[in-house]
């Protein structure tokens, strides 16, 4: 353990962590933090539901947790259950098999709730629109507050998107 601590100081891993932060993200992030502070008393929790994406969207959402973006420092976190989430973040073209599970998650999320659609397929099915197994996204099934486009949207798009959602009200 002592070696590890020594290594941390010797290699300046912690100070590198500050260098990681992209200027662009920092600005967006700080503004985002103000919004979250004001509306949700400094904590905004999101439940992610994948309804048939290609998993690229999930990788980008997971990337929000890495030291470059570190979304949690702004008070936004991903939670394990819809029961204590403020927003549902939905990816994928909504496969028939996932419809019931998604609706259950929606019912279980307490009001008031936000619906965030992430990725090109999430709103209208995108490339999978014509498939027998997809129901053409969530656009006409749930009240979507925000659609973050991209295939997949980059982490910076996701952060800007969240800012937009919170500045609307």
């Amino acid at each position, binding site marked *: 353990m002592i070696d590890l601590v020594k290594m941390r100081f010797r290699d300046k891993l912690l100070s590198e962590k500050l260098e990681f932060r992209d200027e662009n993200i920092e600005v967006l992030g700080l503004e985002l933090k103000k919004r979250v502070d004001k509306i949700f008393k400094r904590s905004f929790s999101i439940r992610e539901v*994948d309804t048939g994406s290609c998993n*690229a969207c999930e990788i980008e959402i997971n990337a929000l947790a*890495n030291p470059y973006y570190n979304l949690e420092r702004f008070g936004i976190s991903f939670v394990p259950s819809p029961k204590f989430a403020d927003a549902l973040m939905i990816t994928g073209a909504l496969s028939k098999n996932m419809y019931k599970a998604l609706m259950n998650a929606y019912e279980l999320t307490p009001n008031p709730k936000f619906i965030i659609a992430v990725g090109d397929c999430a709103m209208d099915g995108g490339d999978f629109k014509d498939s027998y197994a997809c129901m053409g996204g969530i656009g006409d099934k749930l009240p979507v507050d925000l659609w973050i486009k991209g295939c997949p949207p980059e982490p910076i798009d996701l952060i800007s998107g969240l800012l937009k959602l919170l500045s609307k009200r």
Partner: protein
Amino acid sequence: MKEIFDSIHYFCDEFSEDGNFVTIKTKQLKSLSLYLFRDLDCDLSSVVALRAKDGFNIKYLYSYPKKDYFFIVCQNIQDEFESFADDIPALNWFEREISDLFGIIPLNHPDFRALPLHPENYPIGFHPMQNDKIKDENYGTYEYKDVKSEGVYTVPVGPIHAGVIEPGHFRFAMSGEPILQLEIRHFWKHRGIEKLCEGKEVDEVLNISQKISGDNALSHALSFAMAIEKICDIKVPSFAQYCRVIAAELERISCNLSDFAGVFQDAGYSFGASGITALKEDIMRLMKLLSGNRFFKDFVIIGGVSKNIKPYTKEIIDIIKQVNITFDKYKKIMENSSSILERLETTGKIKKQTVKDLSCVGFTASASGRFSDFRKTHPYLIYSKLDFETLVLSDGDVSARVRVKLNDIKNSFKIIKICTNYISQVDKPKLKVKYEIKDGEEFGYAQSNRGNIVHFVKIEDKKVVRFKPRDPSFMNWQSIQFAVLGDVIGDFPLVNKSLNLSYAGNDL
């Protein structure tokens, strides 16, 4: 090989050789299949069903690991066929998938339940790949194989999981702490890709192939492109081939790093996890610089590559060097920490026989003592010219899988170094060649970080009439049911992460 061909001649009615593909037609299908699978120790690589003039045509693709040969065994059937899943367990899911999509029945199948089309959501008589009308419009239910006994309880998990991951259903039968049985139910994300691609243009299918499994976007595009290039006799310029290899290796590093971080995370060591995710971000930013997309989407095109990466050789070398240095430090931490190793060792053991029976691919097989890497056994692009050593371990536990992956990352660093050296010396880089789409059918394959991807493509009148992708996860998913036996449920995330399976690629 002559001896083997002679033995095959003994079984077969028709025999034809085309490059490294050997097509066999026979009436003694079962004996031949068993000869290939057991005696020759072949892996089952893919099974493709096609609509034929009268009835259906089924192609079984076996890959021969000792030499660069593939065997395609064909049979023509009406509306039912004999199941071999009892003798070749790897066929189990393939036969159930064919039965769901085409409505043809595998006789004497050991586990004849619906697979991709959940009976709760699709009418029983609905078979998308068969163009008939729906015969039976009733819905059914899915029978789980729960263990019922005193003191045994069931823990159902999913389809929506706690983390930001894809959906899948797991049912643990527990007796006290240890797991007695794990049953997995997948295909929640079934998007009907096979049917969707019927009758589409080649470029449209290339686009969809990148969305089969997002993290392997490039490898999927590569196997599709190589299938088309084989059909149309396109010779890809050698500069483009080197670019493709660099891209494929960067993707491999990115995915393997993400696994490495996941293992740290699930072993409860977040310091390591966050450090490695930062390295992954470095690689993804490099990918964005090279191709304009963080996943190398639209980088591989038919006949070559879309972007010239020669101007960025210096950046590639610098970033890889930097990542390599930091990576070594984290690797050292893992190797020297008894508390992390204690979590990894003896957890999630998969036996060599299981790997053989299920025809597992990639690091799952290599970590259990069965070598599987198409870059070595069936070299494509320029891999036969490259010198790298792949690791085979016999432990079969999480630790072995992690070590195989870490060795893979090292190999990728080495390969990228060789390839960047080559492309920096090319004076007039040629990125792509012109081509014309021809009719025909071929298999294309590429090695992703998870294992080999095999695509079957058939083209008629310049349109894709049949596209059957086979993601490595489809071969490996069943192995998790054996890996967790006897472990505690708390180790499941670690085992799952060490196998790193794609739900999207499996569900199609």
